[in-house]
């Protein structure tokens, strides 16, 4: 593989002079010192210290998904360094801006951390290796091509000389970067592709890992916060005098037009005082809106004339009208909160000269932009320091809590203030998984073949809420994840001669956001459960029914066949246990699941085992991919079984884990993962598999009980046998 480095890619090497301590931009020097950035820098991605410690710079955020370790493996693979000497650091968003985005995108979402950056980080590692070898060769007065490299040791066999990366790094940093690099064939990988231990585990075992929640700065105060619980409402006023004398209270502030905060010595004092603070809200136009109103709005969309097309083949409506048998079903999927274990938080210090923010964020550059805007300072006087995230799942791609922290800090100049959300605030002020319904209508011919399928999705658009400029003539393409005619974000896995998938956009007042798995979650439930309904109507085995529709989508079919084989689909299930299948494609990867489930006479659902398969193109760390599959199933099954955010009087009803429970260990099924990367593309890992757990389980429940659950979460359906 030979890649010519284009001009933009050379950007990161152009600053290699920084290694000698000569940043062209004064701010970078300041920021590097402030952050204690490691030296010397061979290029933007690689620092090698004199003791041979390799510091790999990671622009994406670590929130549990293992991206940090995976990206380091990719750089180290091309660098050919000693993995046992690898450590890492986050460059700051401010430095990225100051250095012309040398680390490119910081955004960590959409399962894009590795697949979007793998090529340029590998090139960064390869370029650094070439420069290090050249530096050694120059010292010896020989051509670089005569040198050999192994685990950070450069040798010249003919003369018996050797040196290490650490000894030549400072000289290497002065060299011109290579204009082209050759990347290794993944078949030859020795570091990438292996189940190496994560680089960030040790401090998570002894309490040393500092999350945003744990940060302490000298002279720091703490803020507790409350925004109007009704979306669209405003803060009318509050009676600060009533709590001014409570212990520790330092200030009571209007944060923005819908939010108030109490600042105190400790967070607990701030929280107690906030709970006692009389607050008057103007609850606005949605003060009486409830879930029933939102359901009515979506129900209307199911039959509305106007809808945006996502996938259209032939004439579905005519084919269904003329079919021998018609099958129809309506499904629904609720609002859901991310509920990261670590609630939202940020710490800010604002002075007339500078604004600094410490925060867990999935998007350092977005947090930086938000901090710049809120601070009133130019970018060169703002910095954001990223901390490991106590979960992200899409919630921390937003910067609302960063803006709040800066708004507070601006009113407390010179004092660092740590803003922590309570769990209740986190549940009340989410950016929720979109609410949708789907009406599916299918037509079968007399042989049980699917001749027409219409999927009408009605409900909320994420782009309309988050990024309206991304709409295409009003249409939200993200709605159709997994249902598209083509593309990396999910081509539909079935060939249906007459197909219509369309979306009636209905946007309630509840704020929406990207939530692990995004629209793939409900789309997989809609399609894969309905496929089982169609198969049943046709009197055909669900696997066989799918196979007939998947002749043109062999990659979709391959993962489905893998899980069918893994679960033993061709053999009967153990007594009392029932099986279900599902597959979909999204976030660039092909995924499938097969579940074994039993349902007690009391209606209690027990998921015994799930066999999962994914073809993500490449696997950088198999152990971490398996961890992501298992973890995604916990997140997906928690949502499918129990989790809904319902609306009453304009606000979210569920305030904590007692009413919004995830599954716990006693409900965790065994998970067997089958990884079948075919090496032809780079797909995502953190999200895709989440989508297949719920439909596989729902299909198994239907097989077990004869009852088809169509409204999520499952807890709302009573499976008790009479």
């Amino acid at each position, binding site marked *: 593989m030979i890649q010519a480095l284009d001009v933009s890619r050379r950007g990161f090497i152009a600053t290699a002079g920084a290694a000698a301590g000569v940043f062209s931009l004064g701010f970078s020097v300041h920021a590097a010192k402030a952050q204690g950035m490691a030296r010397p820098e061979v290029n933007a991605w690689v620092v090698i210290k004199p003791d041979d410690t390799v510091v790999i710079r990671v622009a994406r955020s*670590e929130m*549990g*998904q*293992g991206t940090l370790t995976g990206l380091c493996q990719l750089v180290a693979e091309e660098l050919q360094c000693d993995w046992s000497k690898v450590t890492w650091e986050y460059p700051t968003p401010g430095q990225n801006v100051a250095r012309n985005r040398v680390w490119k995108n910081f955004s960590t979402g959409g399962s894009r951390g590795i697949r979007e950056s793998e090529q340029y980080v590998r090139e960064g590692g390869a370029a650094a290796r070439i420069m290090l070898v050249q530096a050694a060769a120059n010292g010896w007065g020989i051509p670089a091509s005569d040198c050999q490299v192994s685990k950070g040791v450069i040798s010249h066999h003919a003369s018996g000389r050797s040196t290490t990366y650490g000894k030549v790094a400072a000289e290497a940093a002065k060299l011109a970067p290579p204009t082209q690099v050759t990347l290794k064939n993944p078949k030859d990988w020795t570091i990438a592709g292996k189940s190496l*231990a*994560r680089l*960030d*585990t*040790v*401090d*998570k*075992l*002894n*309490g*040393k*890992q*500092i*999350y945003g*929640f*744990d940060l*302490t700065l000298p002279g720091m105060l*703490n803020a507790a916060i409350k925004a109007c619980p009704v979306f669209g409402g405003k803060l009318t006023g509050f009676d600060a005098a009533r709590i001014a004398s409570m212990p520790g209270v330092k200030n009571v502030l209007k944060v923005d037009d819908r939010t108030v905060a109490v600042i105190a010595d*400790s*967070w*607990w*004092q701030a929280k*107690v005082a906030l709970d006692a603070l009389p607050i008057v809200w103007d609850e606005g136009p949605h003060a009486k809106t409830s879930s029933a109103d939102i359901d009515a709005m979506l129900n209307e969309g199911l039959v509305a004339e106007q809808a945006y097309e996502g996938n259209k083949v032939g004439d579905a409506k005519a084919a269904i009208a003329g079919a021998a048998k018609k099958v129809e079903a309506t499904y629904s999927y609720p609002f859901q909160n991310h*509920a*990261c*274990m*670590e*609630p939202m938080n940020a710490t800010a210090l604002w002075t007339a000269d500078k604004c600094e923010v410490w925060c867990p964020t999935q998007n350092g550059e977005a947090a930086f932009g938000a901090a710049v805007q809120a601070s009133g300072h130019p970018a060169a006087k703002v910095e954001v320091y990223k901390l*490991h*995230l*106590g*979960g*992200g*799942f899409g919630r921390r791609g937003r910067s609302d809590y960063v803006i709040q922290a800066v708004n507070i800090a601006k009113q407390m100049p010179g004092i660092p203030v740590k803003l*922590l959300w*309570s*769990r209740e605030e986190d549940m009340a002020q989410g950016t929720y998984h979109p609410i949708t319904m789907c009406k599916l209508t299918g037509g079968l011919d007399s042989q049980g073949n699917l001749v027409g399928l219409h999927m009408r999705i009605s409900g909320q658009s994420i782009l309309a809420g988050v990024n309206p400029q991304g709409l295409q003539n009003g249409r939200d393409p993200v709605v159709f994840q997994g249902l598209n005619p083509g593309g990396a974000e999910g081509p539909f896995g079935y060939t249906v001669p007459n197909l219509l998938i369309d979306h009636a956009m209905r946007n309630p007042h509840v704020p929406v956001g990207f939530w692990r798995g995004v629209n793939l979650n409900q789309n997989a439930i809609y399609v894969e459960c309905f496929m089982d309904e169609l198969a049943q109507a046709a009197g055909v085995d669900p696997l066989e029914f799918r196979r007939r529709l998947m002749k043109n989508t062999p990659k979709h079919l391959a993962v489905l066949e893998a899980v069918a084989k893994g679960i033993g689909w061709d053999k009967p299930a153990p007594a009392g246990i029932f099986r279900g299948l599902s597959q979909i494609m999204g976030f660039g990867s092909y995924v499938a699941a097969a579940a074994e489930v039993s349902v007690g006479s009391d209606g209690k659902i027990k998921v015994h085992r799930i066999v999962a398969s994914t073809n993500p193109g490449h696997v950088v760390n198999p*152990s*971490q991919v398996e*961890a992501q599959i*298992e*973890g995604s*199933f*916990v*997140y997906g099954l928690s949502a499918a079984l129990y989790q809904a955010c319902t609306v009453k009087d304009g606000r979210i009803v569920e305030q*904590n*884990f*007692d009413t919004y*429970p*995830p*599954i*716990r*260990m*006693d409900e*965790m099924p*065994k998970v067997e993962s089958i990884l079948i990367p075919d090496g032809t593309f780079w797909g995502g890992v953190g999200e895709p598999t989440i989508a297949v757990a719920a439909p596989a389980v729902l299909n198994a429940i239907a097989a077990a009980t004869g009852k088809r659950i169509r409204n999520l979460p499952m807890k709302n359906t009573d499976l008790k046998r009479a």
Partner: protein
Amino acid sequence: MAKLMVNGVVRDVDVHPDTPLLWALREQVGLTGTKYGCGVAACGACTVHIDGEPVRSCSMPVSAVGLNQKIVTIEGLSQDSSHPVQKAWLALDVPQCGYCQSGMIMSAAALLAKTPKPTDADIDAAMTNICRCGTYNRVRAGIKQAAGI
């Protein structure tokens, strides 16, 4: 001023008696390894040991803890991350984001102290902590590895 025995050291804690032990540990003693997750004893991220028993410190007021009671936090579980649970967690790469793991580890250590060879049912009953990343199967494997079963 209350006094607490934390990880073998007597600490002065200047808080209102109603203050949850969690916040006294985090904000007064400065031990931030014990996490806040829910504040209502639902998630277990705040689990510490009091006289060897796993306790959800977010819902235990400081006034309910006497100086004669030994509080152990994640920072005091071992000097050098050498507790069998910590070693098993490292070997199996249990944590993902890690935020819940202090509580997971403290719950697991308390379980094994009482039940050195736990069954799956014992593990299910004792380990009711919430992990949003979904590390449950590795937590189970970690407990078994630490128990040598």
